[in-house]
């Protein structure tokens, strides 16, 4: 049997030494509560399980040229990322409760928190959350704790996937969740202002928003702060290499999906939620936080800190039930950000934007194709309005091994002909040209 070291002989010796029989080990379980051995197939060898799962993996279509985004992006992952996070001292360790044996993990978390703060222009970050969607939910409940209020206004330019999660979580909690409607592809400011009142805890928006439009929310920060509410901004970290940051806009809580920072798509996870806020609110923030301190000999070291917020201390009064988060994913993003560096992130963001701009020009040259939301500024994703139903076009392009983008009609029923197209640095000019060529023929 693999993964079990003791031989039959050792087991018998151990039992004899402690004066027990094999039956004694489970004698405390009443006989009528024991089950028959499970109806599973016999165990496979490593070679067999490798072959079986490789065969299953080949039934997935990952050879497509992808223009599919929607919050998760096909970015290049440098070789050093996998090699470094694959060191078993990192990935086979537990949560750093014994700081003397976890300085590697703890310093990495501190450096991750620092990178997130520098990226978003905020003052404090936690050690990560599950993903961008649950991070936004945590931001919403945090805003309730900070303000002591219960109305939250979410604009529908925020990812519909995130908004569905917010609705599921808040349905039992007496939170008044109001969804406002974006206008012409950006946050619906008039409607947001209309719903602002003295019980409003937060206004929740996103940049670039789900349609790819870049927005400045400085005005919304002022509007929210005038009513003593918070501004919560969800963002795409690669875009922050170029675009105005939530911190510069006056946001109070910033969250986002960190998948683009070196994590594979992996059919939905594991991903990386991040959260940053102002120092004033740190004690209301969920999740682990690493801090720098001194040891008994005065040496620098790191510990988990401000734990009086957390479930293992506070139990039902904790700020969140979250225990472990996405430690290895946070480390992944830290290695990725360290490899890219200050100039690299800026240049990567520029590459994505330039290629998306080129794709936009190329696709808009096709007769009958136009921008669904003209007059806006985009980062690496934009909405095309096609002359025909989007589903037919997507099917046709799949026949040419192109994943053309996301059909917005799935979440916005009136947008039957709208295609959300994403372009990362991985797409080449030739691929974009071919996409345009096939799309033109498909229409």
């Amino acid at each position: 049997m693999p993964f079990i070291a003791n031989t039959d002989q050792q087991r018998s010796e151990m039992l004899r030494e402690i004066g027990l029989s094999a039956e004694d080990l489970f004698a405390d379980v009443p006989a009528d509560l024991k089950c028959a051995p499970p109806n599973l197939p016999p165990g496979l060898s490593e070679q067999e399980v490798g072959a079986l799962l490789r065969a299953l993996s080949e039934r997935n279509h990952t050879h497509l040229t992808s223009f599919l985004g929607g919050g998760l992006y096909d970015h290049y992952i440098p070789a050093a990322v996998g090699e470094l996070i694959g060191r078993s001292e990192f990935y086979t360790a537990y949560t750093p409760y014994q700081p003397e044996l976890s300085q590697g993990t703890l310093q990495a978390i501190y450096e991750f928190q620092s990178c997130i703060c520098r990226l978003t222009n905020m003052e404090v970050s936690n050690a990560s959350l599950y993903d961008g969607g649950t991070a936004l939910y945590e931001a919403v409940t945090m805003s309730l704790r900070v303000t002591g209020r219960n109305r939250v206004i979410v604009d529908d330019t925020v990812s519909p996937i995130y908004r569905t999660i917010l609705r599921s979580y808040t349905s039992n909690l007496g939170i008044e969740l109001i969804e406002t409607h974006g206008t012409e592809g950006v946050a619906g400011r008039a409607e947001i202002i209309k719903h602002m009142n003295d019980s409003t805890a937060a206004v929740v928006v996103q940049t670039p928003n789900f349609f790819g439009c870049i927005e400045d929310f400085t005005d919304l920060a002022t509007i929210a702060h005038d009513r003593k509410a918070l501004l919560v901004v969800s963002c795409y970290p690669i875009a922050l290499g170029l675009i105005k940051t939530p911190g510069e806009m006056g946001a109070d809580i910033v969250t986002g999906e960190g998948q683009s920072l070196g994590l594979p798509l992996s059919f939905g996870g594991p991903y990386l939620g991040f959260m940053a806020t102002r120092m004033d609110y740190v004690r209301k923030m969920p999740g682990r936080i690493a801090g720098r301190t001194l040891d008994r000999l005065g040496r620098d070291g790191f510990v988990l800190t401000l734990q009086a917020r957390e479930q293992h201390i506070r139990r039902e009064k904790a700020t969140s039930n979250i225990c472990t988060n996405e430690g290895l994913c946070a480390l992944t993003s830290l290695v990725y950000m360290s490899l890219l560096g200050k100039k690299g992130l800026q240049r990567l963001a520029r590459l994505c934007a330039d290629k998306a701009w080129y794709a936009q020009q190329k696709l808009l040259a096709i007769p009958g194709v136009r921008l669904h939301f003209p007059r806006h500024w985009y980062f690496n994703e934009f909405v095309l309005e096609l002359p025909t139903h989007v589903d037919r076009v997507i099917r046709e392009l799949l026949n040419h091994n192109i994943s053309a983008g996301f059909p917005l009609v799935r979440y916005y029923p009136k947008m039957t002909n709208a295609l959300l197209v994403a372009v990362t640095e991985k797409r080449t000019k030739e691929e974009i040209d071919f996409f345009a060529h096939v799309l033109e023929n498909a229409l």
Partner: protein
Amino acid sequence: MKLIFEKSVPGRRGLRLPDTGVPTQAEIRPDLLREKPAELPELSELDVARHFTALSRKNFGVDTGFYPLGSCTMKYNPKINERIAALSGFAELHPLLPQLSTGERLVQGALAVLYEMDQALRELCGMAAFTMQPLAGSHGELTGVMIMAAYHKDRGNEKTTILIPDSAHGTNPASAAIAGFGVKAVPSDANGVMDIDALKEMLDDSVAGLMLTCPNTLGLFNPHIAEICKLVHDVDGLMYYDGANLNAILGRVHPGDLGFDIVHLNLHKTFSTPHGGGGPGSGPVGVCERLREFLPISVVRQNRDGSYYLDYDRPKSIGYIAPFYGNFAIVLRAYAYILMLGREGVLRVSENAVLNANYIREKLKDLYDLPFDRVCKHECVFSASKQAEHGVHAIDIAKALIDRGFHPPTVYFPLIVPEAMMVEPTETESRETLDAFIAAMRDIAELVQSDPESFRECPKTAPVSRLDETRAARQPDVASLG
């Protein structure tokens, strides 16, 4: 060791990006751009490799040595699982593909993994159906409690309270509270298991359910579990099984047969996926037949022709608790592990986990107080109360173990045992390792008698020793802002 930012040299770069290859530059209105670039460190690839290799050497993982952290099931993480998760057919698969028209045909391999994992977990737990969506154990708990809430709402029940034993992990009450319930703690009896008379007094129509680990956090199987389930069902409460300790009974007892209605598992405990220094985990939730309709959206189903599809049409569902289908790459690793164990393997897991725990229990109980001295399951809880009389506490013993090359056990948990030291060896450890740990613990017990003062300097071999946590909390330094 220097922070990575302190190693930065302006102009240095760790990755060469390709040229754009397109003839145009994006136009973005200048006031929408950030003022200054983010001050990320500027390093060569070698600088980065050295930095993280140095950090890794300040860490202790299961591959480094024995990690008997109670309740965390730090078993070996098979290497093949990492290779499988990295296969491009899984790693490069976009989660939105199945949402495209006819897109499900593009992801049949991934849907097969989710479907088959559901089947395997049903078989191992005796539940009617599982969702793979919860992204960690605590997330599974929240999902489970939301299912409880949905069930009671559907029945028109006015339920306000969830009962939790006093020996429970803190995340149980936290999850219940976050889902909108009040929490009451049920005391343990003299045998270390739930006090059934106290439970009877606490049960009334306001009770939505009871959350339990079985065996409990003392490593003890509750012989009255079937009666507890019946009592809770009598007030139309639901029984919630916290799967933190499933490793102890894997293949031998079905939580479903005991009477549990909702189960969450920790794939990073029982099913060998790496703990990652604090995640990512995965916390699938299983339910009995009458709760199936409340499971999160979506559910993987099989067509008559053997192909798979995602069912989104679930009007009574609690909705979406994660954006997609869970931490797929973690589920995949756990699935590979189950395939390798097979039907004999799962029995071997529980047998060896329980044997190893009892071996340690028996070999140390003469020197360390064992508040509940009987055959345990996967873990045993000692108390350092005898040692504390000499001024040496559980935390001191933990630090002394570090100097002897071991990761300490969980200390000061469960809360109902003073000076608790909770030891969970897992099935993957050999007798030689257990003997070395036992020898170290015996050596420490002797040292408590002869030189209790010496513990103040432990650990001596680690890069740091006894960090000032009060200072960390009072003067928070939680980021280098540059």
